[in-house]
């Protein structure tokens, strides 16, 4: 909201320069976002009087003018057809920045220089409305009112000798949405209360009740409805001071009656509405809820379908305004209006907010009512508006006010314990100091025994509802910066909150293995969200279709990152991401929130070369065994031993040729090659390998127990088996481990061979086996026995033959 310095000074005197005022109020909690000297734009522009106009000696369409700008008289070449002696005109002097250039297609500003136009030197420029950015008229110069003073800066003439403050008001302080509200806060700084205008009204003898009746049928949502009426007004433009004030805060003036109601809102914070009495059927106002589905045209010309619960101001027959939000086109003030009904009401904040939200309308009025207006504000607003309308538009004020206000809202009384203030803030404020802080805010505090205070809170302070709100006020006025800093934390905890550090360990392990950590958007499009197979969560109000679902896997995000990097010619990529994935939990309880599953995962992605290129090394693209190795190393690094891989073939899902990773009996994730269909979605040509794990399952590792170091030597034996080509190495190793029994210490596969030497459809797999006993030195016989048992078992169970023992 914009606040004018000159407007504030009507209520309170202060001498602080604007920047200091802004800073100090900001430190009180009223944030000043900007300070603007309004006249800045018109520096170097003055009011001039055209003394003499003579034809240009070398150009038919130009004239040479002598213009008096006070201190000097300038010779100005002018091309406007409407220039003539005696006019008061805006003159740009050399060096001034003309806001809009008439000869530039974009109207860009330009700096005026001393130039010679067809042989005559021009020392300035008489400007058009367009050039001054005051309107659209570019056909001729702007001729000012004769009352304009020669030599006066143009900014002053335009009423721009002022400072505009842009304030950002937090939603708890609707009372700050007005000049008087801001003046009250300045009062805290300067230790004075603002002075409100003394309203003097002359009413006629005819009572308002003779013309108008008001019935409130929804007192819950309309606790107060007050009205005044003025007859015989003359609608017209507002006087200069009023127009200036409104323009200064960025509002366009309409007519005197509407302008006054806006002015009073900006002054007092209380929104008002003016009706044309002759358009109110039956001289009646009824406040009731809308019939859902009714069409209603607001005064901005837009048609709305009224929702259920919308509170409406109606006449005897129809709706005439959406209460507290916007008036109707059917009863608005027009040039023909002579009799005006002024409304100032108090509406229930939640009702206004619901209706405004549903209709998608936000107005100055709705913003104030939904945050909470002062229920005791209407009286002042009506009187003040009536006074100003009589002054600006004439007419006769009918006697009295219609005020339907069955349950008067009295100032809230709250107990405040100064001891509590000090305990909560860590201060040692005296009771008198607390009282003094509150007094600056117009909160009266009186003793009620035991040192406690009873505080009376003005009704415009809708945010103060309990003791803590008063404590905040004391803290604010006393100054946050004056509260001492202490660190006397007594750290004594019986329990430790353990968020898992699994994510941290996983991250360290993967960064150490040469992977880059990525963070991708959790919101993806429907196609990607459905790839994984679970039912994705849909966002009801997405920004766009590309971000309409929550991810079900981390893979699509990383593939997108891969695609982007490929476009920068980076093709070797090793990425990982740790993040949450989501799905709908049909019929299940959900992990935290009903109907939703949420899991933390880690995803590893590899593409491109298997190793960084080196002149001596042969280049090779990554394959599944690289990924397997990375996964094995990674699981080992984070302390997991008991896991195995299970092949499963899938054609749906994100990958093909996948392996499930099973940890202690439950599937913790998968690794594999990204499927062609998925790759196509990202336009990826090369193979991409991926592994994805549920973090919670990686967490289930036991604390590692130390195993005593072996005291006896290991014995090594190499062995090779010739087996069917289709037999998997994993199955063979499994059998070897079983057969060797507990003496076996390690198994290392060191060769796989297929060829003539082993025969058709056969292969040879060679292992290096290490044996160890923790009780004794192993004898040759013991190892021989284990080897024989192994050879026998492999032959019997897998049909494999010994190729040769070394």
């Amino acid at each position, binding site marked *: 909201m914009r606040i004018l310095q000159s407007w504030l000074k009507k209520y309170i005197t202060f001498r602080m320069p604007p920047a200091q005022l802004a800073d100090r109020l900001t430190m009180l909690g009223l944030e000043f976002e900007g300070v603007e000297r309004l006249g800045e734009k018109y520096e170097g522009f003055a009011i001039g009087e055209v003394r003499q106009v003579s034809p240009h000696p070398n150009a038919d369409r130009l004239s040479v003018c002598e213009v008096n700008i006070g201190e000097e008289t300038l010779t100005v070449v002018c091309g406007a057809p409407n220039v003539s002696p005696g006019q008061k005109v805006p003159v740009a002097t050399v060096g001034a920045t003309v806001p809009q250039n008439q000869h530039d297609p974009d109207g860009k500003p330009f700096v005026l220089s001393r130039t010679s136009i067809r042989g005559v030197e021009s020392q300035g420029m008489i400007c058009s409305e367009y050039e001054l950015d005051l309107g659209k008229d570019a056909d001729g110069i702007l001729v000012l009112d004769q009352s304009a003073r020669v030599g006066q800066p143009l900014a002053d003439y335009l009423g721009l000798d002022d400072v505009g403050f842009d304030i950002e008001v937090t939603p708890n302080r609707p009372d700050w949405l007005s000049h008087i509200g801001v003046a009250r806060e300045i009062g805290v700084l300067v230790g004075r209360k603002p002075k409100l205008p003394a309203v003097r009204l002359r009413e006629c003898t005819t009572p308002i009740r003779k013309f108008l009746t008001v019935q409130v049928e929804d007192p819950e949502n309309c606790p107060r409805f007050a009205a005044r009426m003025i007859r015989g007004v003359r609608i017209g433009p507002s006087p200069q001071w009023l127009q200036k004030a409104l323009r200064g805060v960025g509002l366009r003036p309409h007519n005197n009656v509407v302008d006054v109601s806006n002015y009073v809102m900006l002054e007092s914070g209380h929104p008002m509405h003016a009706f044309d009495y002759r358009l109110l059927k039956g001289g009646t106002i009824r406040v009731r809820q809308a019939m859902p589905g009714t069409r209603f045209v607001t005064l901005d010309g837009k048609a709305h379908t009224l929702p259920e619960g919308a509170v409406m101001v109606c006449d005897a027959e129809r709706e005439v305004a959406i209460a507290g939000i916007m008036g109707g086109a059917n009863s608005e003030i027009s040039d023909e209006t002579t009799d005006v009904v002024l409304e100032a009401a108090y509406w229930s904040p939640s009702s206004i907010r619901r209706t405004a939200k549903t209709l998608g309308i936000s107005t100055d009025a709705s913003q104030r009512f939904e945050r909470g207006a002062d229920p005791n504000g209407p009286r002042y607003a009506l009187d003040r508006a009536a006074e100003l309308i009589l002054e600006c538009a004439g007419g006769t004020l009918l006697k009295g006010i219609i005020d339907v206000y069955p349950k008067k809202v009295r100032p809230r009384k709250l107990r405040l314990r100064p001891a509590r203030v000090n*305990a909560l803030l860590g201060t040692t404020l005296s009771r008198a100091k607390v009282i003094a802080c509150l007094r600056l805010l117009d909160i009266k505090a009186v003793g009620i025994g035991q040192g406690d205070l009873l505080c009376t809170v003005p009704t415009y302070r809708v945010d103060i509802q309990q003791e803590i709100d008063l*404590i905040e006020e004391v803290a604010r006025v006393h100054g946050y910066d004056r509260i001492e800093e202490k660190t006397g934390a007594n750290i004594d905890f019986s329990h430790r909150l353990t*968020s898992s550090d699994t994510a941290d360990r996983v991250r360290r392990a993967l960064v150490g293995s040469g992977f880059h950590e990525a963070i991708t958007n959790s919101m993806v499009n429907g196609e990607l969200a459905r790839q994984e197979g679970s039912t994705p969560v849909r966002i009801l109000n997405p920004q766009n279709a590309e971000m309409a679902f929550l991810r079900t896997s981390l893979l699509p995000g990383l593939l997108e990152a891969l695609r982007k990097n490929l476009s920068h010619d980076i093709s070797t990529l090793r990425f990982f991401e740790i993040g949450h994935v*989501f799905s709908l939990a049909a019929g299940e309880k959900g992990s935290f929130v009903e109907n939703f599953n949420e899991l933390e995962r880690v995803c590893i992605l590899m593409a491109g070369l298997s190793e960084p290129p080196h002149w001596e090394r042969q280049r090779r693209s990554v394959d599944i065994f690289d990924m397997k190795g990375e996964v094995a190393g990674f699981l080992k690094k984070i302390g997991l031993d008991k896991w195995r891989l299970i092949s499963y073939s899938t054609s749906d899902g994100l990958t093909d040729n996948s392996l499930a990773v099973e940890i202690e009996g439950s599937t913790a994730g998968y690794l594999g090659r990204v499927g062609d269909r998925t790759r196509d979605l990202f336009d990826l040509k090369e193979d991409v390998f991926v592994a994805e794990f549920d973090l919670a399952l990686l967490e289930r590792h036991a604390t590692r127990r130390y195993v005593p170091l072996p005291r006896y030597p290991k014995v090594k034996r190499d062995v090779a088996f010739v087996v069917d080509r289709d037999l998997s190495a994993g199955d063979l190793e499994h059998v070897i481990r079983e057969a060797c029994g507990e003496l076996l210490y390690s198994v290392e596969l060191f060769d796989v061979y297929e060829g003539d030497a082993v025969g058709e459809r056969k292969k040879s797999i060679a292992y290096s086996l290490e044996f160890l006993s923790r009780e004794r030195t192993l004898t040759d016989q013991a190892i021989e026995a284990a080897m024989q048992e192994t050879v026998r078992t492999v032959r019997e169970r897998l049909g494999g033959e010994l190729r040769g023992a070394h």
Partner: protein
Amino acid sequence: MIILQTSMKARIEQTRARAAADIDNVRNSAQLEEFRITYLARKGEVASLFELLKTVSPEERPSIGKSLNELRTFVQGRYDDRQKALAAGSLGPAPADFTLPGRDRFVGSQHPLTRTLDEIKSIFLSLGFSIADGPEIEDDYHNFGALNFPPDHPARDMQDTFFLSRTGLLRTHTSPVQIRVMEEHSPPVRVIMPGKVYRNEAINARSYCMFHQVEGLCVDKGVSFSELKGTLISFIKQFYGPGLKYKFRPTFFPFTEPSADIYITCFICGGTGCRTCKMSGWLEILGCGMVHPNVFRSVGYDPERFTGYAFGMGIERIAMLRHGIDDIRLFFENDLRFLQQF
């Protein structure tokens, strides 16, 4: 003749020096043979010098001849030594060209956001805080209701929300984790809660629809605003450096009261005013306040017995300020050229 004699002596000396240097470079038998041919063969350098003896004057001949014999003995001796050393294999291989590239390994990187978060976490861990986390899909109660956002209150407009169902939504801040922690544990509580949050805001260089926060909560008997200030200033000094100025500005959050924004001297311009601090000389870095009694009531804590403070900060903003990153979207594009810088 004197000149010749001098030059003969000089040439003998030069040959001796060259041979001494060359023999050190001999690493294999081929090089040794090369050495022999150069110096000791019939047409080698030593023999050629003997040839020149004829040209020396008779008076000088004995002395030059003696020097020549000494040279031959020296070179032959070095040759023999080298031959023995080679046979015994006591010489190492030839020095390689160490300027050739080494065998690189892949070097990984931690995302700048988790790196920043790690630093924040380690400071708060040292201040006695533990770490907790919570879900990104929240319900209206935990995200708003329990945090003292009344239904139909404009305070809800402060955070544009992505909705998933009638009550389900993407959390707009990490504050709901406060509620979950207090629902589970009784005081004392001293915990930080990092995580992702979502806001339905326009995407541009300054704002993204998803970002990260760290939330903090401390509840115990006798916790005051004064302690809030002390603790957070201790954090700020550890994180941003001990010398900077700071200020606490009153503001409004529904779930804390009194509430404050903490500003520090802009470390980009040193407080003189720049684009980053919007010419104010100050940077807003943290929101905080005393836990609102209504929040305690909603988790069943007695606000008369316990008091506490809460705070929150945005990780992206901090990382952007620290590293001079001018576009928030870079964090989520995962351009390797960006990630590799951290």
